[in-house]
């Protein structure tokens, strides 16, 4: 009797652990979502922010101060006009005064977003970008963000955020 109790005492946790281990985690249902916008030109305010309310029905704002600072555009300089395209849920920001495209990835449920720069030109050409233009390009279901600029061939950013010379 004592032995049975000892087996039950030590074996029950293993049995329970095995039971919980084999259970499938709860499956969250999904649906298809493609979130894009056309090109949205927005004026940067003196405080470095842009307001989507300029172009309804989108509303909200982005503080571009860190990006402006990274581009070397000081507070005293005239604020540029940026163009923004939402591509597969990420925001891409470009301007003639910029040397790079900036990718902003929202964090749902918060008021913050991650951002990174995507260099377009390198070296001596880094400041030669002009007439920049963001567009959607490609086929249904796998479109790219197309970046045209006067100083070079077009570049493409895929749905995964990779930079390529063509749109797969």
């Amino acid at each position, binding site marked *: 009797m004592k032995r049975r109790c000892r087996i039950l005492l030590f074996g029950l946790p293993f049995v329970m652990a095995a039971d919980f281990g084999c259970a499938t985690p709860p499956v969250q249902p999904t649906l298809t979502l493609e979130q894009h916008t*056309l090109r949205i030109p927005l004026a940067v305010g003196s405080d470095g922010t842009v307001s989507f309310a300029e172009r309804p029905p989108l509303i909200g704002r982005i503080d571009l101060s860190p990006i402006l600072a990274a581009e070397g555009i000081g507070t005293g300089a005239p604020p540029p006009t940026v163009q923004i395209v939402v591509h597969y849920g990420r925001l891409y920001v470009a301007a003639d005064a910029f040397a790079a495209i900036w990718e902003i990835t929202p964090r749902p449920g918060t008021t913050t977003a991650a951002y990174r720069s995507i260099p377009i030109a390198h070296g001596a050409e880094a400041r030669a970008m002009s007439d920049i233009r963001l567009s959607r390009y490609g086929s249904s279901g796998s479109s790219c963000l197309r970046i045209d600029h006067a100083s070079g061939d077009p570049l493409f950013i895929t749905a995964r955020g990779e930079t390529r010379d063509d749109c797969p």
Partner: protein
Amino acid sequence: MTTVRRPALLLCLLLAATCLRAGEQLEADPHELLESAQQRLSVGDLRGCAGEIGRLRALIARAPQWDPEGVFSNHLMPPVVAALARLEAAAGALDEFERRALRDLKPPDPGHDMDTVGDYTGWAASVIKSLRVERDGIIRAALSDPGERAILTRTESYARTERLLEIEVLMKMADTAGDEVVGLLSGDPDIESILVRFRQLKQELIRVAAERDDLRRQLGESEEGSRALREALDLRSSIAPSECDRLRSRLDRYRRYDEALLAAGLGPDRSESIRALAQAVEEIPQSGEIDPAPRPRGWTLILAVLVPAAAGAGLVARLLIVRRGRRQVLRRLPHRGRRDIDAPIRQKDAGRDAA
């Protein structure tokens, strides 16, 4: 040699830089073309909008990658194309309305007495009012959206109908009944705004009418002088060659004045009277021995009065013609909205202008 080559080299470099710069211009993308089409449509440039839509369609047909999921083809372009089609149809209806209205405009039977002014006022007011009602009805029937109606008012077709209502009706009436009738029209609130343009002209017309009356009086005196001259010439038994030449010269001037007045539409045709005078002069036998100085010359005095009177009448007529020509030129100026600025001059106007 070096100095010659340097400018050529600089010129080549400049041309090359220009070509390179031109090559850098980006081709318009669907977004730009759509925005341009919408902008042109909003200002009533239907032809420009259609051109941009055509370019957008061609771009998407050439490179479908520019339009993933057919967003432009299936969602963004159709509303613009539909609005453009509605506006084009409405503009076409307005063009047809304008053509029909111009063709059917029939002013009352012209009569230059003052009694017809009331008739012209009533006719102009009723025609302008009915045309405006018809035009607005066409717009309402063709377009239900107030925004599109507003766009239609910016189109060339609408502007032509406005010219029709503001100018063409009155011009047609002026062509039929004379400018004076347009100047005298008043009293109807529907055309009051239009008549403001003609009020200044009215004062000038009154002054011109007074000058014309004076001219007619002088022409009447001229006619009496001509008759007296013929009678005096009939009494002459002979005439000196020098006097004969002088008479011929004055008759020639008289004939030219008469031709100018006749071409301007002022006064009756006196060519018969002048021809009779010329014949009377030619029928008087010439006598070289006769000294004309001591003889009585009642006819010479009459002719001396007659020819300056005719000359004065000619000058007044010329003033009238110049003013009339100036009014006609002003009427055809672009700011008056006349479409027929390059239209051939009518025969009647050509004669006046030539005079």
